């Protein structure tokens, strides 16, 4: 690989499938074993955007995740969907990370990879749901970013022309190297073919530990010890009390109208 090739890094978070994951109402905990890991839905859009740009400009797409060892299959899926290389940061010392420590680990891994022209993240994750990791990574790497990108209009090796949902939709230019976070509207992720899946099965996922990043990072800033925010309590919110009057049959609509009139809602 020569150095003037275009390098894209996609940050992918392995998350539980929200349709399947169970929550323990009593204990207020998430039963993470109740659902298998998959690529965070918004990161599928990020990966697709990266692959489309690579198809135009050439170069290489590297997927990077910080997750437990079980996430290796998720990174294989990323390879099946077009990533050329996959790196999994996995180590007990990464565990318990909040967004700052997560961003620090990911930014360190990107430094370790060496050259990068463009970093693409999802808008947010379905579990953490902060949307903070992208801009924090950009800040740590000292590069500009544009969040909430809904459309990529033009790409060259020097800059990107995008539409972003910041306030009114803006047409914006981003100088590279830079970072974008994309929403679901940016594209329709393609499905991997059977052939791609088979190929990905044999592909190698590089696994990095905290020590592997020691030359580019301060390992004490990883994981729980590097996390300034801490969850003191988790609650499964009690559902708002509802009247739960569900009408069936012949006069159901009349009953509904009557009820809404009583509420003073039909005026």
């Amino acid at each position, binding site marked *: 690989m020569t150095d003037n090739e275009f390098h894209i890094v996609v940050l992918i978070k392995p998350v539980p499938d929200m349709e399947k994951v169970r929550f323990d109402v009593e204990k207020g905990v998430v039963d993470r074993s109740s659902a298998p890991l998959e690529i965070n839905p918004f990161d599928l859009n990020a990966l697709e955007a990266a692959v489309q740009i690579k198809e135009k400009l050439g170069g290489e797409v590297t997927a990077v995740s910080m997750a437990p060892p079980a996430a290796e299959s998720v990174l294989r899926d990323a390879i099946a969907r077009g990533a050329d290389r996959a790196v999994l940061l996995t180590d007990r010392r990464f565990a318990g990370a909040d967004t700052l420590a997560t961003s620090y680990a990911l930014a360190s891994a990107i430094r370790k990879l060496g050259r990068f022209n463009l970093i693409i993240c999802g808008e947010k994750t379905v*579990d953490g749901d902060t949307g903070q990791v992208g801009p924090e990574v950009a*800040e740590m790497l000292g590069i500009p*970013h544009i969040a909430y990108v809904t459309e990529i209009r033009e790409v060259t090796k020097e800059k990107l022309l995008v539409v972003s949902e*910041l306030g009114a939709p803006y047409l914006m230019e981003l100088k590279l190297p830079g970072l974008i976070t994309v929403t679901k509207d940016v594209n329709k992720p393609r499905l991997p073919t059977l052939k791609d899946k088979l190929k990905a099965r044999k592909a190698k996922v590089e696994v990095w530990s905290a020590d592997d990043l020691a030359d580019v990072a301060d390992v004490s800033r990883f994981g729980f010890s590097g996390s300034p925010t801490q969850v003191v309590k988790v609650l499964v919110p009690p559902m708002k009390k509802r009247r739960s009057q569900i009408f069936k049959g012949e006069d159901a609509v009349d009953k509904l109208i009557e009820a809404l009139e009583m509420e003073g809602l039909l005026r």
Partner: protein
Amino acid sequence: MVFAEQHNGKIHPVTFELLSKGRELADRKEVELSSVILGHQIREEAKELIYYGADKVFIFDHPTLKEFDSILYKQNIVSLIREEKPEIVLIGATHLGRSLAPRIAAALNTGLTADCIDLQLDEDGELIQVRPAFTGNILAYIKTKTKPVMTTVRYKVFKARERDPMRKGEIIEKEVKVVEDTGTKILGKIPREAVNISDAGVVVAGGRGLRRPDDLKMLEELASLLGGVVGVSRPLVDEGWASKDRQVGFSGNIVKPKLYVAVGISGSPQHLAGMKDSEIVVAINVDPSAPIFNVADYGVVGDLYEVIPKPIEKIKLRKMKL
């Protein structure tokens, strides 16, 4: 310290809500409430921040700050925070706020909690930040060990105080740090027919139970009779039946109207995340086991094509009589 978000010199209303909560926290902690605003020719607006509760307002006024620039904004706010050392920094969880706050937090190497829906003080006067996670399925209570404690707060969870034009405060002009080229540029605005479903008092939302895009007209008629707007579930946006500013849910808009009517919507967790705090929820669905009925105050198990015309008729009749 409250970050005042402005667009074209107009202050985003979430700012006033944050000032109100900030005032309450500052009074209980017996500290000062400050606010910071960046822009161009915004001195008049700065006064508003005092009317809504700030003791002190820091202004960064410069042509380069007219439009939002994450790096320029970040640099000036970071140096202000380093000088003033506020204990808590509140920023609206708007797209702009959620793009700016993480850059500031990373630069200061401090904790940031996103998209809070409540802020409390514990016995030690420390801030407890409450936020939904896991697509709205859980609420997490979060504390921050570092200073400042940084938080983005959702629009419309706190009530703004009454504007008091007699309130006095101090306005302090700060010197603006200018960077020639930050790497991002706004080239223009994309004109878009803007529907703001988040502010509507009534939302009539259609889902995949509708057969044709044209059938949304029926919902529009009902919505306009009720003085509301039409929203949709995500599949209708994906199919191109409606624009994405009408989408309700996790990847769309959060709504909290007086009346939410879900028509042919099953009630997936991602949809509920956007509407479950509505005051009154009405559901119309053929499937009695649809999860939307679990959050409904009133519901009709039936075919929407038979149900919807009836209230439309009824209201029309009534309006004719008046």
